[in-house]
């Protein structure tokens, strides 16, 4: 029995160790964003918000922030639209051909962003449409749509077939089924999918670096700052970007993915006399 207690302890230690490993550097970064000292080293010199104030005054960062917000909003909206329609298709469509289409849709997820960014940069360069935010959005949808699709599909699978069937029997055509039955029932999953897709686009660096030209997004600007200097201002920017993602992810998770929250299917649709 004591061996079992020991084993439980070991596994929990590994788990806790992994989490500490994942969050320690971020905690250090956030901590030093409040440090008076210019250099991120001990001993602690005192608390200040000066770096955040400097951040707000930084023109390049502010412009990049707006670009990132625009890119992420549009990418996420398009991704949700594609994700929803595709999720509805795969609700009724199965078999080998459906599986290969499904695999094809998820293929870019297995591709290093580096390669996708490079390939699209050279391709768009030839077409003469590279080097601006639109190009970034086109490719961000490629990586964000499968994520939105996956989240929405989980929700659609929870909606009973009988509900849809009833709507069809009552005379709704398939567009109306989608618009009046499926869509209202999966609204939370759409929100969750939007938020997850948004964070992926918001944080994505490599593709934006290859494609954004002179209209750099926030991760690209932060990257070039990181490469050139060590400044507590970057710590502050990092802390804010991290906090934004955490908030979006948490909201998305509890809204859409968490099994704790389930909306019942609309009742009494198929109840006969």
């Amino acid at each position, binding site marked *: 029995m004591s061996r079992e207690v020991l084993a439980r302890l070991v596994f929990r230690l590994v788990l806790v160790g992994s989490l500490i490993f994942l969050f320690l550097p971020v905690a250090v970064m956030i901590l030093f964003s409040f440090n008076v000292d210019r250099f991120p080293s001990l001993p602690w010199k005192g608390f200040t918000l000066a770096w955040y104030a400097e951040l707000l005054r930084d023109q390049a960062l502010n412009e990049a922030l707006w670009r990132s917000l625009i890119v992420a909003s549009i990418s996420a909206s398009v991704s949700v639209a594609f994700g929803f329609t595709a999720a509805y298709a795969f609700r009724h469509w199965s078999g080998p051909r459906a599986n290969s289409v499904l695999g094809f849709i998820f293929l870019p997820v297995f591709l290093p962003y580096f390669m996708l960014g490079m390939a699209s940069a050279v391709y768009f360069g030839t077409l003469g449409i590279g080097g601006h935010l639109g190009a970034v959005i086109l490719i961000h949808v490629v990586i964000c749509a499968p994520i939105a699709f996956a989240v929405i599909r989980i929700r659609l699978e929870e909606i009973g077939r009988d509900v849809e069937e009833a709507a069809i029997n009552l005379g709704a*055509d398939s567009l109306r089924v989608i618009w009046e039955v499926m869509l209202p029932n999966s609204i939370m999953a759409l929100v969750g999918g939007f938020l997850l897709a948004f*964070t992926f686009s918001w944080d994505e660096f490599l593709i934006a670096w290859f494609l954004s030209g002179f209209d750099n997004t926030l991760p690209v600007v*932060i990257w070039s700052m990181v490469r050139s200097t060590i400044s507590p201002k970057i710590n502050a920017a990092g802390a804010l970007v991290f906090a934004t993602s955490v908030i979006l992810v948490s909201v998305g998770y509890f809204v859409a993915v968490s099994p704790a929250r389930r909306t019942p299917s609309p009742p009494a649709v198929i109840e006969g006399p």
Partner: protein
Amino acid sequence: MAVQVRRASQGPREVGGTAAHRPAAATSQSLGPRVAWFAFPLFLWQALFSLVPLLYLLNISVWRLENFRPVPAVTLANYANVLGTGYYWAGYLASLQLSAATSLIVLVIAVPTAYALVCHLGERPKRVLVLLMLTPLLTSYVIRIYAWHVTLADNGIVNGVLMGLGLEPIRVLYTKTAITIGFLSYYLPVAVLILFVGISSIDRYVLEAARNLGCGPFRILWEVVIPNIRRALVFSFVFVFILTFGDIISPANLGGGRSYLLSSMILDRIRVNQWPEAAVMSAWMLATFLLLLAAAITVTRSRKIVS
């Protein structure tokens, strides 16, 4: 309108029958072929903006470079140049080695972590910890790599603590160890989540049976869990391998200025506008990925037959 009338007239007959009790597959059967078109926009998008650019890049690998611009041609000279250069082979081998080592380290840590998540926690803490594992994947990789940079710096907090304890400072930054640490900060949670799904799908009764028959947690992990998640293991190994192989963020930031990995060498080629050679190296990388995927599929298939 006409459609609606027809449907309405059909309505009573179907309701009078056993419409409500019809097997669910019936809806799919009637809707399937038509509804399949709803997947078309996404399919088309992925084809236009991932497959086509990739094929275009591969195509450029046989082009010629004239005045720093790729010009259409069919030549294997770029392949000869790249594959005949020892420097690139050294980079390729270094990448293979680093990715293989990273993927193994990831698995060694991720398996017990995922096992602890699934089997040794209550429902509520489990949900919170899964969310915590998910967070690193959805927060900026660049920023987390930068955070490691700050943490591992020569006068950073790790060395500050070490020296405070009277120990020798360590020099980790700008070594392969630092690159691996950077990789782990992103790909460890990826593997944990894949294995989490794998372990969660093991029949709970099998685990309980093993427990009732007197198996300790270590033995359950080794003799019940691991044989049951072979596919997830192989899959996460391949996934981490491919993604680290094509990663330039951690090498560029934590590995110092020198390029000794294939991915950073591709980047160097792009900086001097040598797109055809960069394309050759990408093709080389893709071929490696495909071989690895094929090997993984073969391994999981043959093992499935045995078990």
